[in-house]
């Protein structure tokens, strides 16, 4: 049923307003004055499907994704989402916006000394008062949801394991489940497979794109691996030197585009 709506929305004519779209306008970030990492980024990221951002290391992919949930403060520009400019939020309004944006990290960023269940419930911290977090008295609905998600990512029965006892692939499954626990409207994934072996990388991308598709959630993924990007993304954004140089479907991404993005040719042989 949800899938059908997704298709219907995708089929909407170009230019029709997409209420779930994320619009970046002239987004700039300078860590040091005069040295821009992001140069006037203009992007419209649709409200459905998986969008992959590819590009060499140090080109601003992570900065771009971290500007969206304001882990990094943009220097200038607008981030329009659900009628709000995320770049201008602060305090409680920023926290309220952040809890609707799930995030998956390269190094998983779990709390190592907490159990898998506690790590999943960390995804609810934007919703529950601090005393509930302290006494671990989370609402029964959250705990039920956490059990369902553990089953969905293939970690049924792992709820009492400590996060530091898990393998990399298992940790990233917990990371994905924690992001979905937030009941987000969008998921950001910053190099979610870069610390994993090739087989596990594919599994993680399958889980991420599968869970997002079931919930009709848009996903933005930073990714090094062009093959994985081609395989899972409905749309690819190529970045180099802080600017967007390709924005379109995976089928349109040619070798000359890749040359432009990564520079040189010898690496492709």
């Amino acid at each position, binding site marked *: 049923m949800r899938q059908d709506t997704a298709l219907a929305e995708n089929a909407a004519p170009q230019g029709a307003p997409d209420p779930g779209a994320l619009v970046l306008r002239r987004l700039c970030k300078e860590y040091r004055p005069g040295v821009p990492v992001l140069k006037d980024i203009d992007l419209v990221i649709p409200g459905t499907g998986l969008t992959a951002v590819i590009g060499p290391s140090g080109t601003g992919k992570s900065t771009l994704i971290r500007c969206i949930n304001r882990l990094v403060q943009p220097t200038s520009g607008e981030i329009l989402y659900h009628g709000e400019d995320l770049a201008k939020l602060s305090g409680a309004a920023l926290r309220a916006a952040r*809890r609707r944006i799930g995030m998956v990290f390269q190094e998983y960023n*779990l*709390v190592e*000394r907490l159990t898998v269940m506690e790590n999943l419930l960390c995804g609810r*911290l934007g919703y*529950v008062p601090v005393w509930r977090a302290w006494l671990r008295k989370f609402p029964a609905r959250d705990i039920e949801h956490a059990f369902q998600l553990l089953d969905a990512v293939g970690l049924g029965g792992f709820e009492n394991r400590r996060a530091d006892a898990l393998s990399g692939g298992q940790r990233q499954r917990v990371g994905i489940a924690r992001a979905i626990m937030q009941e987000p409207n969008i998921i950001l994934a910053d190099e979610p497979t870069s610390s994993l072996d090739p087989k596990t990388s594919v599994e993680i991308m399958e889980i991420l794109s599968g869970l997002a598709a079931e919930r009709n959630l848009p996903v933005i993924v930073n990714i090094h691996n062009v093959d994985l990007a081609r395989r899972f993304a409905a749309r690819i954004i190529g970045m180099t030197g802080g600017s967007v140089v390709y924005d379109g479907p995976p089928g349109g991404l040619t070798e000359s585009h890749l040359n432009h993005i990564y520079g040189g040719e010898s690496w492709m042989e």
Partner: protein
Amino acid sequence: MTVVEQLNRDWQRFTPLRRLSRFAFYLCAVAALVASLRTIEIIPEFLYDAPEQMVDLVQRMVPPDWSYLKPTLDALVETLHIATVGTVFAIFMAVPIGIMGASNVTPNGPLNLLAKFIFVTSRSVNSLIWALLFVAVFGPGPLAGTFAIAFRSIGFTGKLFAEALEEADKGSIEALTAAGASRPSTFIMGYWPQVRPAFWSIALFRWDINIRESAVLGLVGAGGIGVALDTAMSLLYWDQVAVVLLAIFIVVVLAEIIVTSVRTKLI
């Protein structure tokens, strides 16, 4: 490279400048030793009969006066109470100040500085001086000793707790921030699980130190076994002094054993 050049290659550990500065350092050290020997005015007569004095003291101590055991044990229990309650007080005060002093949890320069100022104040005053101060406030007795121990310990526990917080993994904190968690929630679910082992380790370590420190507080009238020691020494009852010293020694060793075994279980 010719053979001659290869033969003439030389390697030395220090450059000439470093050799010179090392020589200057040793020269200064010897000069300081000579200068201090000339100013401390050792009285040779005292030095000559030191061995006899030591033997005499030990002879006066044995056999220990076991009838003094009862008052010693009572005073010992008081010392343990002073050390334990003082440590608990110290922790209650040190945790908020430690949070205030950790620059990642409290990103506010003036507050960090205020916390560091409190740590330095607490640590730079010796526990005997704190005890004198609190004897003046509360009068002689264990209450003054407890407060002396507590205030002396804030600096140590608070500083180490703040350092443990600053070493916490940034990634997991970032993840909780990204999930929209408030600062108190981030502390409870992000920082606290990471610093919990360090916290208990610091608390136990300080308790161990405080047992030793509280043993001497009685010298200035702040309660505990130090009072028993002071009384016996003033009256020159060396056989009673022996009992007190033995009791302190046994308790310190026991505390050390307890702390070590609990610590290995915690970490």
